């Protein structure tokens, strides 16, 4: 597997401009001759399909939901970063880049991250023009807030529903292109495999989720914008349908998978209430701007929070990290919550929780101000828990939320399969080993609106592609494989439901490949995953038939892929014998218990190559070269 990141030459700040100066272009008359498949209609996919349609390409866009508007980007609450410096508080493109690369613990690619910061301002312009109602100040100009550990206020937001509003903007642009006839939209259609012909991505095989029909769509390029894989943990903040299947199938067809062990466990989620729990709900981390995190000082303190006096409370983030306090990055906040719970000081059912307390902020600012800032989040919390956070502190606990790992891409967002591009959370490139708050929306839209329209053109203008038809043998072979697999899942007729096996996998992954990992646990986890996978393939029960709307069959296919991914995640975590960002290896920590990087051996990206069902995958590395920044030990003290 050849890994050439194709980073343009020249100073960091000029790379993207230089590339655009030199990129090959597809002539307007030729664009409509190129069919481009876009899988997923979240921020990355929706924006990409709309932008490519505007340029005149023939776009086929696919999503598993009944509407493109429902992709999981919609659930992002907090906001989107941009280096506008509207607040005059010292922000610059470089500073946004620097914060992002540092926040990622120097495991991201400098050039990609800089480009992300560079186009961030265009995104805000674009979104406002689409009619996205970002919050404004009384003069009518855009408001910003500080978010997730940033020392400048660069986050734009729309109540607590920023993701929803941004997605509705991309969805509207997509609809405009459907109306214009450039985009054909396939809803309730799930991609189940990739078609590679002569070494290039030329199509996908899909299943119609209403009729069960399996068919092939061909194109000149395929864009995967299919999100992350946090649902490998079963319980996560992701929507129930989020899955790794598209990315995993592409991996098995030759796309390198980069840093699969880089996952983010978000610190502020509502804790699990019972065994039946189906997902975890995130509470925007903007809450940490005014909420104070604490647990009782004493182990086993069973008193109600209001009965615990101030001097018997441990505001542990403020104590350990006086400079950043409650605003430390997500990985640091999560790990510390786990630590205090491991010490036996956790609160609530199961003792896996910490308090997020607004009493001080309500006293200082008044309940009205807090309501204006977080009203809908407080309402949501009360709806779920039955507790009023204006009166009693919220209970929170970390939950899997985002995956920084993903398919490897070069600077052009092309994977190791020519013609296969990967955008948004599904790729690995911009966030290193930890993503900062309000950066996911930024990356999805950057890739979709402002990167792929340029880099895809370069690909299409440079290669000579033969004609391709959905009837040819390469396509029907993949269709047969997909159908056989469904038939196999339906025919096992064992004793265990898909959910019960998925739940077991998730618990195992959270314990051994979650907030902290160690060699022994990971090795054991790999054995257990294999055993569980064997049990899945011999004892799962999938009801119904393939030729009908069958939600159990949909889940079974996804979970089967999660088993394979889970093993690779553990393998990757084992290989990376250092701690960085969200990846914390117990063997690699400072005396104070902070993550300790090993820059000498691990200033790189691990890219896994699939070698077949019965062979071990092979690890390749892309060395990360820092031309501009000097990696330092992160310190938030």
């Amino acid at each position, binding site marked *: 597997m050849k890994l050439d990141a194709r980073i343009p030459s020249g100073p960091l700040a000029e790379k993207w401009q230089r590339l655009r100066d030199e990129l090959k272009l597809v002539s307007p008359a030729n664009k409509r001759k190129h069919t481009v498949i876009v899988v997923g209609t979240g921020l990355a996919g929706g924006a990409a399909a*709309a932008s490519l349609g*505007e340029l005149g390409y023939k776009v086929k866009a696919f999503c598993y*939901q*009944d*509407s493109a*508007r*429902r992709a*999981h980007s*919609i*659930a992002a609450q907090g906001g989107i970063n941009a280096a506008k410096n*509207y607040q005059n508080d010292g922000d610059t493109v470089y500073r946004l880049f620097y914060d992002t690369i540092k926040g990622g613990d120097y495991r991201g690619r400098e050039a990609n991250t800089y480009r992300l910061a560079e186009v961030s301002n*265009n995104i805000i*312009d*674009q979104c*406002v*023009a689409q*009619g996205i*109602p970002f*919050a*404004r*100040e009384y*003069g*009518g100009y*855009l408001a910003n807030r500080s978010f997730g550990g940033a020392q400048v206020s660069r986050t734009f937001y729309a*109540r607590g529903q920023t*993701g*929803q*509003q941004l997605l*509705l903007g991309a*969805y*509207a*642009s997509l609809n*405009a292109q*459907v*109306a214009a006839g450039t985009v054909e939209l396939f*809803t309730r259609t799930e991609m189940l495999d990739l078609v590679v012909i002569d070494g290039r991505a030329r199509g996908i095989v899909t299943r119609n989720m*209403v009729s069960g029909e399996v068919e092939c769509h061909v194109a000149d390029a395929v864009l995967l914008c299919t999100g992350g894989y946090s649902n490998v943990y079963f319980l996560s903040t992701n*929507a*129930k*349908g989020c899955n790794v299947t598209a990315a995993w199938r592409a991996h098995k067809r030759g796309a390198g998978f980069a840093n699969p062990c880089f996952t983010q466990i978000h610190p502020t989620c509502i804790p699990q*209430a*019972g065994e*039946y729990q*189906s*997902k975890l709900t*995130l509470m925007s981390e903007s809450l940490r701007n005014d909420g104070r995190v604490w647990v009782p000082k004493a182990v086993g303190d069973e008193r109600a929070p209001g009965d615990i006096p101030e001097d018997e409370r441990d505001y542990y983030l403020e104590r350990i990290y006086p400079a950043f306090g409650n605003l430390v990055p997500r990985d640091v906040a999560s790990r510390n919550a786990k630590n205090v719970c491991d010490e036996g000081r956790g609160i609530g059912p199961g003792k896996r929780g910490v308090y997020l307390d607004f009493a001080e902020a309500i006293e200082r600012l008044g309940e009205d101000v807090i309501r204006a800032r977080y009203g809908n989040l407080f309402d*949501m919390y009360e*709806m*779920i828990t*039955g507790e009023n956070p204006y009166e009693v502190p919220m209970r929170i606990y970390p939950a899997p939320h985002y995956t920084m790992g993903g398919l490897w891409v070069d600077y052009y967002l092309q994977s190791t399969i020519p013609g296969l591009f990967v955008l948004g959370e599904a790729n690995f490139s911009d966030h290193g080993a930890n993503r900062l708050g309000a950066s996911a929306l930024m990356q999805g839209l950057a890739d979709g*609106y*402002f990167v792929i329209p340029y880099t895809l053109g370069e690909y299409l203008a440079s290669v000579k592609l033969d004609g391709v038809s959905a009837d040819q043998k390469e396509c029907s072979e993949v269709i047969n494989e997909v159908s056989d697999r469904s038939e196999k899942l339906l025919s096992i007729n064992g004793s265990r*439901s898909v*959910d019960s096996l998925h739940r077991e996998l998730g618990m195992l992954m959270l314990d051994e490949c979650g907030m902290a990992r160690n060699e022994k646990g990971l090795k054991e986890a790999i054995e257990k995953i294999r055993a569980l996978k064997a049990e899945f393939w011999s004892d799962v*029960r999938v*009801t119904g038939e393939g030729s*009908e*709307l069958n*939600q*159990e069959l949909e889940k079974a296919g996804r979970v089967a892929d999660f088993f394979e991914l889970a093993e690779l995640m553990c393998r990757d975590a084992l290989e990376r014998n250092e701690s960085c960002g969200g990846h914390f290896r117990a063997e690699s920590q400072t005396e104070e218990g902070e993550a300790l990087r090993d820059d000498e051996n691990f200033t790189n990206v691990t890219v896994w190559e699939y070698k077949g069902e019965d062979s071990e995958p092979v690890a390749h590395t892309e060395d990360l070269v820092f031309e501009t920044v000097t990696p330092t030990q992160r310190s938030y003290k």
Partner: protein
Amino acid sequence: MKLTLHVWRQKNTDDKGGFSTYELDDVSTHMSFLEMLDVLNQDLIEKNEDPIAFEHDCREGICGACGFVVNGVAHGHQKGSTVCQLHMRHFNDGDEITIEPWRAKAFPILRDLMVDRSAFERIQQAGGFITVRAGSAPDANAIPIPTETLEHSMDFAECIGCGACVASCPNGAAMLFVGAKISHLGLLPQGQPERAERARQMVEAMEREAFGACTNFRSCEAVCPKEISISGIARMNKDYRQAMFAGAAAPDGKKR
């Protein structure tokens, strides 16, 4: 607690369908309504029966995928919430609960509690957008927008497209949904150039579908999980009327 559920079961669009009754013995008050159905589905799978199909995704009240009628009320009786945010603490031991899909001519049933809402998509595709090419936008602060206007627009922008408004309307009207989009974009300065044409296109697309007309029952507003005001319907009518009187310019520049 113990519950008796009467659930609409229907294999596909052509099937006649009917209610089936299920008993649940051990429902925790902390469960969400959908988690209660998950538990029931696990029981059904164990008995080798088909689990109940229902639409859901984010399970935090924002994606708009979920929705069915609980005891006659779209999304259940908890005000301002989707059914995924409804928790079992609002029910009592021994309750009988009737669960059925959205019932509207424009939303054919696909299976059990799932319906086809693609009519909504066709309305949005007809004009629910501001035409702006990626890359052509001016600086985001170029046009100041008064907070009041902005917040008013945002009240309408919150629509999640779940379809509860249609399901609760005795006429099966989609006007709250259409009015919300027209108001969201029509209140903003960016939305002005296409305002009349947008209203015309969206209203005409709505009329091509099997939705009914509004006769001011206001049940849509009562069940809307985002509590969107029917004043949006008035805005829609106003914009549409203006488009008709003015003879809105079509995208090709010709008057109609």
